[in-house]
């Protein structure tokens, strides 16, 4: 199980998987993907990493306690609904900012994207904590 080849391969793979996860997260608003898919991809990546290298390695790689990833995720999701309240709109109303000129490529950023990031963090944290917990037991 713990062969050198596997180690190297997983390291490479984990990097790729994480990049893919972020890609899925960011494109999710327009193409298939989104916070869930991204978190699941990342979670699977770390799960494989943990199987190959042992859970301790994953913990050092992640640095944060997994439960402390999930909760901020929840917090981000909840708080992303609040700016609208300060703007006098109902909870969870999307607030959007447009960057760039109207002529060339525009980039719109809104609170729903932060909500999606919250989803990503929450699900990733949950998966990590349960996988690591089970691995360590």
């Amino acid at each position, binding site marked *: 199980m713990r062969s050198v080849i596997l180690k190297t391969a997983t390291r490479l793979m984990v990097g790729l998987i994480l990049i893919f996860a972020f890609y899925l997260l960011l494109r999710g608003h327009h193409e298939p993907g989104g916070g869930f898919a991204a978190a699941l991809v990342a979670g699977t990546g770390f799960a494989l990493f943990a199987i190959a290298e042992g859970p301790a390695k994953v913990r050092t790689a992640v640095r944060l306690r997994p*439960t*402390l990833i999930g*909760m*901020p995720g*929840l*917090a981000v999701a*909840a708080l992303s609904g609040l700016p*609208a*309240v300060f703007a006098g*709109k*109902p*909870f*969870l*109303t*999307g607030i959007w900012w447009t960057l760039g000129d109207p002529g060339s490529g525009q980039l719109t950023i809104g609170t729903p994207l932060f909500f999606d990031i919250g989803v990503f963090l929450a699900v990733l944290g949950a998966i990590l904590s349960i996988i690591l917990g089970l691995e360590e037991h």
Partner: protein
Amino acid sequence: MSMLLVWPILLPMLTAITTVLCRAKVGAAHWMALVGAALHLSAAVALLAAVIEGQILVAHMGNWPAPFGIVLVADYFSAVMVLITAVIHSAVMVYSRSDIESDLVRAGYYVFMQILAGAVCGAFLTGDLFNLYVWFEVMLMASFGLLVMGRRVSQLTGGIKYVTLNLVSTLLFLAAIGLIYGMTGTLNMADLHAKVALVPQPALVTAAAMLLMVAFGIKAALFPLFFWLPASYPTLPAAVAAFFSGLLSKVGVYAMIRMFTLVFTTDTGVTHHAILFGVAGFTMLFGVVSAAAQMEMRRILSFHIISQIGYMILGLSLLTPLALAGAIIYLLHNILAKANLFLASGLVRQATGSFHLERAGGLYKNNGWVSIGFLVSALALAGMPPLSGFWAKLLVIRATLESHHYAMAILAAVVGLLTLFSMIKIWAEVFWKPAPAPKDPGGKASVGGQVSAWMLAPVLVLAGITLVLGLCMEPVIRFAEIAAGQLLDPRAYVTAVLGGTP
């Protein structure tokens, strides 16, 4: 304005998140729980005040008009349920300070409890069927966690039944939602009110309603779907049991009342007057009979939960203004009294070292305050005038008689007597009986009757509320009559929700 409906859900959740993020130590977690509960309570009071002023409040989440987005709706019924949730939540948080071991606090007791409180409010406030499902799942997961957190063997084996049977209920609920969406094309409850009448095949609506009734019936612990409740509740710490018994199973009752007044009133001859009516009778009777056979305080109380739910469903099944008002008052009274009895059971445990009727005793002599707290709630539960339970029972029985169901009225009265039987059994054994000598000579004789003030105070406060509620029932009855009127004539509700449709 619309945040009034969000705060009762969001504040407990934010408290939970903050508790985790601050990596609060046990002592700090206790204090944060108290602060969170106070915030929750004030949010609930504000909501109720606003509802009384403005009848039906609606908040469109994300500013999307109904029925497209999710709405939170507060009419009289849901607002008062939110308030009572906050009251119980606060009482339990104070109580937990002494009742809950620090190991459980470290494992996230407060996180689960607060999210549970928020989710219960979510279920009371939501106006969307699928959103209701989501809140049910949040409650379920939080209760799973609280149930097995102590990891005693009895909790695990009870937990298995709780988890498996509730998962069955969840699956049925989800399937029912799918079917209802497939029939009507909507998920918004107010929208459903209009759309179910348009379904070309009415038997299909009835069948879907029955599916939903089974799903809610499991949650509400109706006969014969209640099995998970007596298997799991008696294994819980008193604080958790109080919260579960007071609120968790009542959410099922709430959902039933909501769905079977707002949406599924197309076939009341079958759904209400035949099935719910019969089920109510069996539920009342079975719960009380089984309670009489028990000797452990939490088990007696658990079976009584079932029995009392029968009264509420009886009120729903009759579907008259008086009956529904009775059901609502019964719900409110029962949440207070039942939660308090479970809290009192924790005091008994602390003072005598046991929940078991044979091994406890001497509290009447040694601790008058605990006795008062228990007796008031127990007599209220048994429906002794002038305590709150009597008025609730009076309304339900009167409504039953007015619908000419004489036998059912007699049954309801007999069940009241048997409830009294169980309550005085606890009273006679735990309070009046002298404390039994410890079996093993080395065993500690914990019969001093000393209890923690953190645990005693909420019990006395809840007992006081029960007492005051019973003596000053008039405003509550008026309130319940308006609430029942809103339920029976949902036009105002539907207009409030859908009025803004472009």
